[in-house]
């Protein structure tokens, strides 16, 4: 059973945690995963991707086991952070980049500004696009007790997410992550210029979406695909909500086949 190794690195003066896992034989091409706006649950659902790849999950400043960076107050600041982090991890060759939700927004901007560092791009229900006819839910407005029902679709998964005691420490950790999220997206949960900028993305791109996503509607998938310079593939999953990698193993499998050059 593959497991993550945790290590701390200092990027531009801020300590961040990096999870890594890879094939037992060593090696594997790097696959970097930008997570969404919650890093407390861990990312074990991604471990199948580590069977063939050197899987790298850096935790954003202000989330999970990383320190706060109070100089970050825009998604672009995260892009700058990740350019430095890539340098520090000596990721000189283009990498496969996967981003989920907020991480998809960061990944798309990273590909806009640092396209030469990305081999293939996967955007899983990415945030950041303004689609007036299918608007995203403003997560800040969702009461904490009903949040799980927005995140996942399958009843069994919902029961799992909603179970267990909510301790003071958990509430504080969640408040801290929501604070970090608010610093970058409270004013608006989209980047008005993103649709203009996306045409800079020319690398092969896969778009994944849960068909029952209540946070960012699946109808936005086509809008993303239409704006990229490259031909994008779209794969959607029936019976799946916003936490697409947690809800179906099919998501990681689809990523694997796409990165291997499969259609």
């Amino acid at each position, binding site marked *: 059973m593959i497991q993550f190794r945790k290590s701390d690195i200092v990027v531009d003066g801020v300590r961040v945690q990096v999870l890594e896992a890879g094939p037992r034989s060593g090696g594997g091409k790097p696959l970097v995963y930008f997570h969404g706006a919650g890093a407390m649950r861990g990312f074990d659902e991604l471990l199948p991707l580590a069977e063939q790849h050197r899987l790298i999950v850096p935790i954003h400043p202000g989330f999970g086991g990383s320190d706060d960076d109070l100089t970050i107050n825009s998604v672009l600041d995260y892009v700058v952070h990740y350019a430095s982090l890539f340098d520090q991890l000596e990721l000189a060759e283009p990498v496969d980049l996967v981003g989920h939700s907020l991480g998809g927004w960061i990944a798309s901007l990273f590909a806009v500004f640092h396209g030469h560092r990305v081999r293939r791009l996967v955007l899983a229900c990415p945030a950041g696009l303004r689609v007036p006819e299918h608007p995203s839910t403003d997560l800040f407005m969702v009461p904490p007790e009903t949040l799980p029902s927005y995140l996942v679709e399958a009843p069994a998964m919902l029961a799992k997410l909603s179970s267990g005691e909510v301790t003071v420490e958990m*509430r504080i950790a969640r408040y801290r992550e929501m604070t970090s999220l608010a610093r970058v997206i*409270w004013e608006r949960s989209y980047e008005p210029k993103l649709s203009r900028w996306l045409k800079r993305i020319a690398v092969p791109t896969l778009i994944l979406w849960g068909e029952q996503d209540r946070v960012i509607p699946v109808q936005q998938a086509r809008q993303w695909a239409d704006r990229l310079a490259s031909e994008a593939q779209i794969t959607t999953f029936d019976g799946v909500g916003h936490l697409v990698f947690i809800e179906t193993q099919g998501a990681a499998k689809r990523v694997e086949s796409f990165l291997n050059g499969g259609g």
Partner: protein
Amino acid sequence: MSVLDRLQFYLMHFMPYPDVVPDRPQGQWVDIPNTHFDPEKGHQLYKNYIDELVLGDALGYDALVVNEHHSTFYSLMPSCSIIAGALIARTRQAKICVFGTPITLTYPHRLAEEYAMLDVMSGGRLECAFPLGTGMEYWVNPLNPATARERFRESMDVLMQAWTQPGPTRWDGEFYHYKYLNPFPLPYQKPHPKIYIVGSGTEDTVQYAAEKGFGYSQVFTPIAAQLRSFENYRATAARHGHTPDSESIIISAIPYVAESEAKAIEEARDHILFYFRNLLRTGDQMNTPPGYLPVDRLRKRLEAGVFQSSEITWEALTSVYRTVLGTPEQVAERIAFWCEQAQSSKIVVHLHTGDMPHWKAVKNITLFAEEVIPRLRRKLSPKLKAAE
């Protein structure tokens, strides 16, 4: 010299809209359907409330205080400057206190202009307090709670530069850039009207007020916690070379005066309970948007169980808030005790509370002015004299 020798009475009004929407555990804020507002009722309330404050001026209160909240039945004052303008035209003596517009909800130069107008119009009667705004304001204004404290500091720096440095000047900040910072008019009082910072006890706000030499006032937090904040404020101010006097700290109270204690309780108790149970009540999510509280402050609140909402009882309320219902004698004695306890000579009194009808507010404002204030000023209370 005792703080009682220089007592000043600040008559404050929240101007609530008392026809609350029932069955709302999350309170009367943010997402309260505004279709419940009746403009004719609102018109009458503005008349009554402004009359009550104007009466305060005639009866010799040192100051009239108004403040600001948004999208809530708690307050009919989404712009306290407008009420202040109306009060200036109808009053002669009392200071007019805007306690106040959260500076982050507007452009800082614009607030500098508006407050300067009020100070000049009133011939130098203005005092200003600057709150961060409740958490609820951030849901109904396009403003980020997670960066609000940084924006607040910069906004205050802009306002102070606008008021104290000969204009035009230039400003290059994180949040604002001014090519010509050049407000006109400038305040009547020099260098500027008295400034307070309003807080809820968050340590860095107390520190900020003390470092800058601003006054400090705390709203609706338990008395013991307030007293600790005041100590912290005085110590920090001293370290920064300021010597805060008893006028630098404002305390607040809810008194009701009547012929007997029983009558005071009968006439006022339910209105005060109404205020705490209906108007002040909010939900955890609404009053604590992300980033509004520093994480260590949230930890203290969670550990103290502040967020466990329960029905507010009279006993619980009076043990943590300065509330006194009684005869002039009883009220005067209690207020003297509170001022000495906090070493404050300025006391904000809320004499209209909750859904109190106009006649009771007029009675309370009149009796407090005619029977309580003279007792405190001239120390007519035999018990107080004996205590000297």
